């Protein structure tokens, strides 16, 4: 196969892939009789054109970072966690319970507790599939899918019958006390100057950035991370090295679930201020795409999360302000995943024509 320089692989390949996805998207828009130019401008201005737009883009990106990291950690242990959706929703339950339990005086007190609860609940929802995989060999892909459905049912039941304040129409909890409200980027000093309007992006963004860094540390700088990666590559070899498959499977999935659960401080605590049903809104699934596109590396996850934040917000703007149906967003997301994640070799082969391989002698 053609070899291309590293810089081209890191810069040109993704850019050309994105471009190809863009071209196909434009063709789709033309085919349904709309204007690609209008779509593009709406999308760009709506997602990155102003600090206000960024306030939304970053909000979504924050959620995607958590779910993307969740998928990444499990993936390195060769565990395909499709349960981010359910784990995030359960994490939301934990966050809600903590926020409602105490009349929090200040968010700095509420946030750590909510994070712990969100992570614990998310981890708990990953624990059963993890245990079944480690001890009974039940396929984690199926059990996590099943747990998404079971989690949704559990949440709806709790919201409707237990947590809903009397007389309230929504299947949702009561509002959290104002002391549990997280400051948005608009509310923060200095940043408030850039983000001059009310936006949903909030301090959770920084938690997400720290999480990216911690996951990187975990995977490439700690013994546990080493064990997870070793186990993920070869289970027999891991046994030889004295790595316990049970321990690694459990820990990798618990961390994964905890990361997915942590996402809910962004949407549940930071944005809506109460727990709604389907609070994760598909972020768990987008996390799979984010992790795969980010090549299961925290930096990649970070970039992919921003990209998907842009697509998500920009796509929403198209849905809001043009007559192009919102579903275009899903198509564009899909094409971006396809070209950057699955057809990257095609781009590499195309580029290989320009970068003729130099032959070197066998050493």
């Amino acid at each position, binding site marked *: 196969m053609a070899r291309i320089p590293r810089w081209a692989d890191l810069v040109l390949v993704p850019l050309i892939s994105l471009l190809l996805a863009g071209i196909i998207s434009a063709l789709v828009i033309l085919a349904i009789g709309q204007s690609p130019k209008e779509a593009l401008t709406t999308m760009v201005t709506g997602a990155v054109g102003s600090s206000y737009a960024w306030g939304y883009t970053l909000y979504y990106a924050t959620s995607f970072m958590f779910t993307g990291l969740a998928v990444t950690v499990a993936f390195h242990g060769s565990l395909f966690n499709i349960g981010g959706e359910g784990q995030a929703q359960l994490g939301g339950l934990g966050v809600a319970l903590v926020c409602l339990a105490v009349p929090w005086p200040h968010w700095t007190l509420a946030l750590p507790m909510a994070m712990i609860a969100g992570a614990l609940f998310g981890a708990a929802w990953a624990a059963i599939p993890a245990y079944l995989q480690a001890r009974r060999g039940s396929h984690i892909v199926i059990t996590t899918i099943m*747990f998404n459905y079971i989690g949704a049912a559990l949440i709806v039941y709790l919201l409707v019958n237990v947590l809903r304040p009397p007389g309230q129409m929504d299947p949702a909890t009561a509002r959290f006390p104002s002391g549990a409200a997280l400051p948005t980027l608009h509310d923060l000093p200095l940043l408030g100057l850039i983000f001059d309007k009310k936006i949903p992006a909030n301090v959770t963004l920084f938690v997400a950035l720290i999480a990216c860094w911690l996951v990187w540390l975990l995977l490439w700088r700690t013994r546990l991370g080493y064990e997870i990666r070793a186990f993920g590559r070869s289970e027999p070899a891991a046994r030889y090295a004295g790595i316990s498959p049970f321990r690694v499977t459990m820990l990798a999935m618990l961390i994964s679930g905890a990361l997915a659960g942590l996402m809910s401080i962004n949407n549940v605590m930071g944005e809506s201020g109460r727990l709604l049903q389907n609070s994760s809104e598909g972020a768990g699934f987008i996390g799979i795409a984010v992790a795969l596109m980010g090549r299961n590396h925290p930096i990649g996850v970070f970039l992919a999360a921003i990209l998907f934040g842009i697509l998500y917000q920009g796509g929403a703007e198209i849905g809001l302000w043009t007559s192009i149906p919102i579903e275009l967003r899903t198509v564009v997301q*899909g*094409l971006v995943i396809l070209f950057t994640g699955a057809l990257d070799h095609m781009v590499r082969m195309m580029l290989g024509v320009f970068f003729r391989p130099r032959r070197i002698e066998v050493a």
Partner: protein
Amino acid sequence: MDYATLLQILDSTIRLATPLLLACLAGLYSERSGIFDIGLEGKMLMAAMSTGAVAALTGSVWIGLLAGISGAVLFALVHGVASITFRGNQLISGVALNFVASGITVLIAQSLFRQGGRTPPLSGEARFNPITLPFAEALSGVPILGPLYSEVLSGHGALVYIALLAVPVTWWVLFRTRFGLRLRAVGENPASVDTAGISVIRLRYGAVVITGILCGLAGAYMAAGLQAGFGKEMTAGRGYIALAALIFAKWRPWYALMATLLFGFFQALALRPDVIKNTVGFDVPVPALDALPYILTVIVLAGFVGRAIPPRAGGEPYVKER
């Protein structure tokens, strides 16, 4: 539970299991050839939309079916190009195509019919109408078996019977034909196929196209058999359930029938709170009922199937030269 109720639940089981079965067999061909496919959902959706749209436009369900198959095969080919020719990541390609399908079906339906991404309701020849199996009337009087035949087995759309027939056919193809031997081999060890002088690429494309065709049948059944038209996201996760059934079935056709019937049965049972209440003796909360098929699946997986070993070469592109 009385016999009539059981019959109704079984009847419902067959309908609910059919799209799962077709999708499960579809996945079986692809994965047996070493190409993982989490894009079953997307292909079914695409097929449902194409069938719904073309059947509505032409008034013929068979032309609609052809369109549905074409739509699904088109997506299958894209998956093939990405994962076979360009050796891309099969999981990513599958996820991506699910996204694309979820959006593009609505875009197309909306731009064709302007009914909010739905296709117009189908009726008459534009739908798969129930087929009464021979002697269904005559045999319905036979105790026990008679009603089973005339009420449960008889009276479904053509695709139900095609799906049921696809099980022995798949078994036969897989284990009794040259193509099947090669297909199984290429999913286990593509190098063995290659060194035997057979084209890995051609075999895998063949498998992927069959996957497309079967997904096409599944989607068409949903749009023109179970329903009378396409609606946004109408597959509602059945592609994923089919995948679960495939693993459950350990990639074997008869097991696939069992697994999908079991899933279908759980789903049908969950539609009958009255039956469950009578069985367990207390009122089961509605969400618990909804979760029932999934809970039962987990229990079954934890208890009865051990480790399911996928085809060994699955998910990995065949690369000779590193």
